[in-house]
């Protein structure tokens, strides 16, 4: 059976052997067919450590090809160390073109952010997920949470959010803010700030989520309703800054705070480096 393709190098194309890719591809199709449901898959050891994007890397490795253009971001930026490391990995094992421009990419692998530039039909956004189970911090047992999903019984999360309101007067959860996909499955959007949650709703791009250590894949198909949990008297709201980006002046983007001197002086800049560059009209470096 012709299985692995060596292309003259010591590794299979896109690192994984063909049988593993087929297994992941089957899991992805199931994930797309049942939006928000976490499909168990036979996650493999990758040459990067667990917790550093192995789920996203396996998903990307199973879908990527020579026709693709890959963008990798961490914290919204293309040049953070982990993003650089993963981009180099794919450039090396999948001979794939890479870009920092959101609009040019066919596949975008991300950790902790959704790009500010709206995505298009045909693009695929691959999320790196540390803990795929939205109920995990409320119920540590997989056997229990699996039953809760089967019964669509999500009261425990409502109670948790309500307790936050009772204590703080508002929902104090700021990232990894739980969502309901197409009215059925509660889903962890991965640790993106809740600022990004509205971008998940009816997004024209396909969203794939990979959790390597926990061995789960889930998906949100294009145009699928994704609702952030809230209450009638406490509607969902996102972070706001009184400042604007010090580089491009944006008031619409997620801002990172930088401490620029010993006196604690602050500067706010866009977390999405490509969006910020584009707004300033600067060429790609």
């Amino acid at each position, binding site marked *: 059976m012709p299985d692995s393709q060596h292309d003259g190098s010591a590794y299979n194309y896109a690192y994984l052997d063909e049988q593993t890719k*087929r297994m992941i591809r089957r899991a992805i199709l199931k994930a797309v*067919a049942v939006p928000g449901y976490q*499909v168990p898959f036979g996650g493999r050891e990758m040459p990067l450590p667990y917790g550093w994007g192995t789920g996203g890397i396996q998903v990307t490795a199973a879908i990527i*090809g020579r026709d693709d253009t890959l963008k990798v971001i961490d914290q919204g930026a293309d040049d953070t160390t982990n993003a650089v490391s993963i981009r180099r990995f794919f450039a090396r094992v999948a001979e794939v073109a890479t870009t920092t421009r959101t609009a040019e990419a066919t596949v975008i692998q991300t950790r902790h952010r959704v790009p500010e530039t709206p995505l298009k039909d045909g693009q695929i956004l691959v999320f790196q997920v540390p803990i795929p189970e939205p109920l995990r911090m409320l119920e540590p047992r997989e056997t229990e949470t699996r039953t809760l999903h089967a019964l669509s019984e999500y009261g425990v999360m409502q109670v948790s959010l309500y307790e936050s309101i009772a204590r703080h007067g508002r929902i104090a959860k700021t990232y990894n803010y739980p969502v309901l996909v*197409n009215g059925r499955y509660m889903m962890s959007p991965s640790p993106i700030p809740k600022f990004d949650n509205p971008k998940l709703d009816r997004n024209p791009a396909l969203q794939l989520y990979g959790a390597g250590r926990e061995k789960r894949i889930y998906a949100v198909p294009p145009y699928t309703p994704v609702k952030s949990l809230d209450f009638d008297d406490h509607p969902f709201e996102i972070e706001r800054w009184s400042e604007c980006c010090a580089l491009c002046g944006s008031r619409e983007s997620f801002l990172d705070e930088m401490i620029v001197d010993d006196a604690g002086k602050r500067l706010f800049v866009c977390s999405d480096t490509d969006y910020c560059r584009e707004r300033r009209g600067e060429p790609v470096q």
Partner: protein
Amino acid sequence: MTDIGPGLADPAHDSQRLFRAVLDAFSHPGRIVALPRAPAGVGPLSPAATAFVLTLVDRDTPLWLDPAFDVAAVRDFVHFHTGAPIAARQADALFAVVEPWREPLLDGFAIGSDAYPDRSATLVIEVPSLVDGTPRTARGPGIATHETIAVAGLPASFAGAWAANRALFPCGVDLVFTAGTALLALPRGIVMEG
């Protein structure tokens, strides 16, 4: 032993392109997706069904063949190129290649469980055409507003069978309609009207 037809010329890259086409179809239910460089059809199978089998089936996935497709040419091809066991019982299959006029069309296949809805079968249904049938309106995940599906060759009972499958959600089977070198997917969550 029959002469076994060739599989994918360049397994790693051909299967990647074919998978992306299948993923495009699953992500956009009702969208007709032309398969890039589809292999020749084997025996009674269309090139699209053949491509689907070569892309996703292997020794971990029992395959069930409708009697019309359960011929030596297909069996030998599947065994040689994929190593997949041919399922004796429908319920054991993770994939199946079926004819549209078999009745009941969707019954007897694994639908998963409420705890594990992914443990379900995907049915490849070989149809005469993806465009010449009765138009029906589809709504659901992957579809912006609505999509018109006009797969030909489906029995009158299909609408009822699909509604029953949809009612099982999150359990149920997923369908892939194949004709020539194109395919169209109908995941279990899609609602069909008309």
